[in-house]
């Protein structure tokens, strides 16, 4: 009896919800789709009318970037400033964390639906090759002012004599060290002129003095940046302007042997701990926790990481080799690029110039994407930099001064190289393969990658 009653109640509520959703969802469909399609209509109608009536220019742009809350806030403020100075222009911010950012961008490009303005990492060449980015060359000089820029930075976004991106922040890979641990172990903090032998000695000293569970350095043999500067320090190159590799199997063997010796001496993080506590993220890095003294990092990570720990952190150059210092010159940490399908290339260019050259925007944005590329903005900011930011500014200047005068070329298919190098390092550190065999495999695969990069699709 009771069950029959409850079932009737169940049925009537079900019927009621069915009715409700039928109405609810349809009305919802109507409202949200109309609100979504309206701006698009507006922009298309207004864009055609802009050519005739330049006084009431209405432009709608979208800009996407990734970051954390601090960058979101600063970038939004900069956009608001730009909008207030350019009545009629609205820039819809589309920001998110880094997870999934590139996947979404790829999907949007595949559907022809990418934002007008896009923040990108170092991998812009891939997108240039596929004709996804707008050629900014026509606007250089007239709209985008790059006179105040280091030529290397402009060069890095120039392909076939055309400019496709503008650096938002300069960054440099180097070593991040835990000064507190150096002090505890009584080891002097290295100078910029230290060598690979010095690194070996310091790592061994720190790990023996501080005892079990503490290590001098992460196993950096899996870091492409570390390998590049090692090769540079011995007169070689990971990848040259001519599109070829400039190193031999022997160099790779030397590189991995160096780290294997350190591993046998107990001075580097053991293989398993390196996997479970990778140095790439602040939440897992043992340098932040005060158990490892040295790791690779980008200079711009310093401020954020320092905030997470009471240990004192600092930045350090990669060591020297027989050919001097092989540091990779400061790179663009992030570019701003324009989507090839944008309807308002001129306004896009104007905004790009605003992001990098406007003093007020510079004040708002600060160093949220690394050191500002324009000299005068950098000077303006350095007067008010926090001590931690100052360390970053100084480090990047130092790297710029000491990097060897070769034209640095990014390895194509960088993603795949990073993965290959990591697997090679793991095979060696977990004793799954001899150094010689792993080096052989590495060379074969690197050559395949280079060949793949040069094969036109």
């Amino acid at each position, binding site marked *: 009896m009771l069950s029959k009653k409850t*079932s009737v109640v169940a049925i009537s509520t*079900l019927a009621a919800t069915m009715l409700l959703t039928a109405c609810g969802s349809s009305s919802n469909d109507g409202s949200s789709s109309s609100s979504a399609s309206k701006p698009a209509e507006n922009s298309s109608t207004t864009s055609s009318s802009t050519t005739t009536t330049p006084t009431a220019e209405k432009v709608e742009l979208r800009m996407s970037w990734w970051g954390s809350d601090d960058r979101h806030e600063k970038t939004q403020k900069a956009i608001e400033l730009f909008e207030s100075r350019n009545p009629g222009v609205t820039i819809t911010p589309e920001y998110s*964390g880094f*997870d999934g950012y590139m996947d979404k961008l790829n999907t949007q490009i595949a559907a022809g639906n990418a934002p007008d303005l896009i923040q990108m990492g170092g991998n812009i060449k891939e997108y240039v090759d596929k004709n996804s980015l707008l050629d900014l060359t026509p606007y250089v000089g007239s709209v985008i002012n790059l006179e105040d820029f280091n030529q290397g930075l402009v060069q890095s976004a120039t392909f076939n004599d055309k400019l496709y991106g503008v650096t938002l922040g300069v960054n440099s890979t180097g070593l991040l060290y835990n000064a507190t641990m150096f002090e505890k172990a009584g080891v002097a903090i290295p100078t910029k002129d230290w060598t690979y032998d010095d690194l070996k000695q310091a790592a061994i000293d720190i790990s023996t003095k501080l005892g079990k569970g503490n290590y001098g350095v992460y196993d950096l043999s899996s870091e492409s940046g570390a390998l590049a500067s090692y090769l540079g320090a011995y007169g070689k190159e990971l990848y040259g302007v001519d599109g070829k590799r400039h190193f031999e199997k022997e160099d790779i063997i030397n590189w991995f042997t160096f780290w294997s010796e350190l591993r046998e001496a107990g001075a580097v993080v053991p293989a398993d701990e390196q996997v479970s506590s990778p140095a790439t993220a602040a*939440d897992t890095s043992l340098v932040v926790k005060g158990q490892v003294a040295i790791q690779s990092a980008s200079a*711009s990570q310093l401020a954020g990481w320092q905030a*997470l720990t009471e240990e004192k952190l600092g930045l350090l150059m990669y060591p020297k080799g027989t050919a001097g210092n092989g540091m990779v010159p400061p790179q663009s940490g992030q570019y701003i690029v324009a989507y090839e399908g944008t309807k308002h290339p001129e306004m896009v260019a104007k905004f790009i110039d605003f992001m990098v050259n406007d003093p007020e925007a510079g004040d708002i944005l600060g160093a949220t994407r690394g050191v500002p590329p324009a000299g005068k903005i950098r000077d303006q900011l350095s007067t008010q930099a926090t001590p931690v930011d100052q360390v970053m500014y100084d480090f990047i200047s130092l790297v710029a001064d000491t990097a060897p005068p070769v034209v640095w070329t990014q390895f194509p298919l960088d993603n795949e190289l990073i993965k290959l190098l990591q697997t090679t390092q793991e095979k060696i550190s977990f004793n799954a393969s001899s150094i010689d065999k792993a080096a052989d495999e590495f060379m074969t695969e690197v050559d395949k990658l280079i060949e793949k990069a040069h094969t036109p699709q």
Partner: protein
Amino acid sequence: MALQNRLKPLLFHIIVLGLGLLMLYPVFWLLSSSVKPTTEIFTSKGLWPSAITFEHYHNGWFGLRNIQFGRFFLNSIMICVLAVIGTIISSSMAAFSFARIDFPLKKLFFALMLGTIMLPGHVTLIPQYIFFHKLGWVDTFLPLTVPKFLGDAFFIFLIVQFIRGIPRELDESAKIDGCGWLTLFVRIILPLSSPALITAAIFTFMGTWDDFFGQMIYLSDVNKYTVPLGLRLFLDSSGSSNWGSVFAMSVLSIVPSLLIFFLGQKYFTQGIATTGIKG
């Protein structure tokens, strides 16, 4: 004898609770990280914070410009409620058809249906995105909700299995009473398969609540962001993240699913338990 009778349940509770607490360790860790001072989250080893702070909750909720975290909760709840309603209606209808009605090509359709969940979603994502883009649905809730009204293979299969556990005699007697298919479905089959429906509702809610990738791909306007997207606004895995806010908001983000489960579970567990006491 009497002592043994009292010890046995006690032992049972100790084991079940002990195992449960072990399984919950990560949750305690999350909870404690959300109230630790920032410099302690990753550097201190113990669960117990040296000082308790609620600033992460405050910063996480109010810390974003022009938007509060509550907005993400509202959006998530709206999408989830629509998804639950859609899934229950459409999946139970299809399941009823597969389980009880004979029609041509039934087996083929059933096999095709199972086939759709065997292909990894990553390769259909882009064609699907292009389709929704052509409809003008990108950056609305529609790609995330409308498909739910069109049946989900997982739940259809689930409900089919439950309906097939209901004896056919009930159908026959209903038909003798002159009931049509609709009445049979609504009056008899739906109520009797309510454990499966509640299960489907809970799973749909949680699955939709957690669906980071789909929401990330389709939503671009921050005002339409959901909880998983909101959480990652603090998370720049290529640079520096605001971990305090991530953990604090992660704790809050579990609450709705927990509530739904706690409220829903009695619907699929009562019944038999009462006879269990007798046995």
